[in-house]
């Protein structure tokens, strides 16, 4: 997994959220603090000019991973490097330098804009902040360029406010804002999950085009493995805070190694062919005990062994460019 010069590198990143869940008087139960391990020892290299997707169910830590890369969430331990510079949380001038290279598109296009900022300001503020345009004329020029790129009608939108836009237009505006300052890395957190089916393809193709024509590196988050397969070069599968499988997007759907990846693939809807849906419903819906010490997938796993209860598997290479964190697989190899 090591390579010459990754543009983004996560080195044993852990994020632990603790909640002060103190039982109030009158409520039963002892006072307790609960902790959620959002990321566990995550190692990941993202190469320049690649599109890497992270796939996993809700709550598996996908969004937290994004937030550590752009410096919005501080890792409990471990470090994140962007362009070989360590992301320093809480230092505003360093963060600004980071955001110059690394921009994020947030999941919900309905809450990503300040409703009091006009669409002009949405684009103008980052351009001014990074000193990429000084006069209004310069800003308008660049705005027209990015709006063309993302397929928004510049003349129509100029005087409007985000609330006047449809969901698809908002998502495009969110992309325009991220692209406007020409970052080298775009982090897209489920950018199509809130959009209508007929509009999704346009957004996916836009990201592919940015990657192909301008060499933008994309970290793409999705829960839909079919979308990941379509857009990306490599796919990382996450489960309960850990990356359990990493492979090229081409191979993953054909030769999934980790039992969780296999479950995800068997659950994904397919057209024109019957999937192997006859899997035990129980294993699909089984509730998972969050306090497992070893492999977090063990309670749902059909391959579970003794070692899985006590030890946590790490990512091991099974073939060129294909890594799996599963004792059952590494034993075979």
């Amino acid at each position: 997994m090591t390579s010459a010069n990754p543009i983004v590198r996560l080195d044993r990143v852990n994020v632990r959220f603790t909640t002060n869940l103190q039982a109030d008087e009158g409520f039963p139960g002892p006072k307790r603090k609960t902790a959620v391990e959002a990321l566990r020892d995550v190692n990941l290299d993202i190469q320049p000019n690649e599109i890497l997707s992270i796939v996993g169910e809700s709550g598996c830590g996908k969004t937290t991973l994004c937030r550590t890369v752009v410096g919005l969430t501080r890792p409990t331990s471990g470090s994140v490097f962007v362009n070989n510079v360590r992301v320093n949380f809480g230092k505003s001038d360093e963060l600004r330098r980071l955001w110059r290279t690394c921009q994020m598109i947030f999941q919900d296009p309905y809450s990503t804009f300040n409703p009091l900022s006009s669409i002009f300001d949405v684009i103008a503020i980052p351009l001014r902040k990074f000193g990429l345009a000084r006069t209004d004329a310069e800003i308008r020029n660049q705005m027209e360029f990015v709006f063309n790129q993302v397929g928004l009608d510049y003349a129509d939108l100029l005087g409007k406010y985000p609330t006047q836009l449809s969901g698809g237009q908002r998502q495009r505006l969110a992309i325009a804002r991220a692209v406007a300052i020409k970052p080298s890395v775009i982090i897209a957190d489920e950018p199509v999950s809130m959009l209508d089916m007929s509009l999704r393809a346009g957004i996916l193709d836009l990201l592919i085009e940015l990657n192909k024509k301008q060499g933008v590196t994309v970290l793409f988050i999705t829960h839909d493995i079919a979308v990941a397969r379509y857009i990306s070069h490599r796919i990382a599968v996450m489960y309960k805070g850990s990356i359990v499988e990493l492979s090229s997007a081409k191979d993953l759907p054909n030769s999934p190694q980790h039992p969780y990846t296999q479950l995800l693939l068997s659950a994904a809807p397919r057209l024109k062919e019957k999937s192997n849906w006859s899997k035990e419903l129980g294993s699909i819906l089984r509730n998972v005990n969050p306090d497992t010490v070893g492999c977090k997938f063990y309670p749902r796993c059909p391959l579970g062994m003794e070692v899985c209860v006590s030890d946590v598997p790490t990512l091991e290479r099974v073939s060129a460019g294909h890594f799996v964190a599963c004792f059952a697989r590494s034993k075979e190899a």
Partner: protein
Amino acid sequence: MVEHAVEIEGLCVSFPTEKGELRAVDHVTLSVNKGELLGIVGESGCGKSTLAFSLLKAVPPPGRVTDGKILVDSVDLRSLKGESLRQYRWRKVAMVFQSAMNALDPVKTIESQMLETILQHQQLTKDDAKERIIRLLSMVKIDKQRRKAFPHELSGGMRQRIVIAMALCLEPKILIADEPTTALDVVVQAGILRIIKELQKELGITIILISHDASIMWEVADRLAVMYAAKIVEVGKTEDVVKNPRHPYTEALLKAVPVLGMDEQVIKGIPGSPPNLITPPHGCRFNPRCQYAFEKCRADEPDLSPKNGYAACWLRE
């Protein structure tokens, strides 16, 4: 002769707005066979949910049914009022609402909510009702211990299954599921769809499944109706509609989403955006986005009929 559980004829539902009348369901004619699972697919704002609400005679005001009729088991919904409507709702037709995650009462346990529903409507002893609750929970694969839980103690997928069980409390003949899996991830989605399919087979009930996602229909729906801009544009057996779509919108919709199992698939968005229903496009409503549109499409509106094989498109006439 197939028996129809639901027959909808020329149904129109309108909402008055400041900018004019918005017709959310426009001359929809559709029948649902007894015991089948009918899928209704369409994008947000196409009128799917309004159509579902009109089957419960519960179109939210100021919206109202302006034309057409609905027959459920040969009973005209227009004739139902007061007590007869109360007997009809939930006993005959029940619904799993779209925002099912929030459809439960946060301060009541699952059991007390279900108990309330059953005892309000049916003459049952508490013990019989509790027995039924346990049976319903096992149908949706929820451990009976969980009936004592409050909604916040359950995961999203479990809450969704509870809402399905609640809809089945009064043993309805027809179940409408409006986007039952939208906020859930794929694994949970697959589980819930399987439960819905099992219910159809085991209880022999008629199910209407509504979704914006055509790809989930393939596994579960017997027949598929595609809705665009307040109209049904194509109806047919799921296999026929998916493998050989006859309406350009259906064709485009199926091409717009990446799906596994189709290698090197090229996906293509549909240009433009769904039309405004206050001033829908002249002629066929899909014509501004349709790659095959010709003159007739801009002038006249095609209807769904046996003549075009239930695909409302001039190309099929």
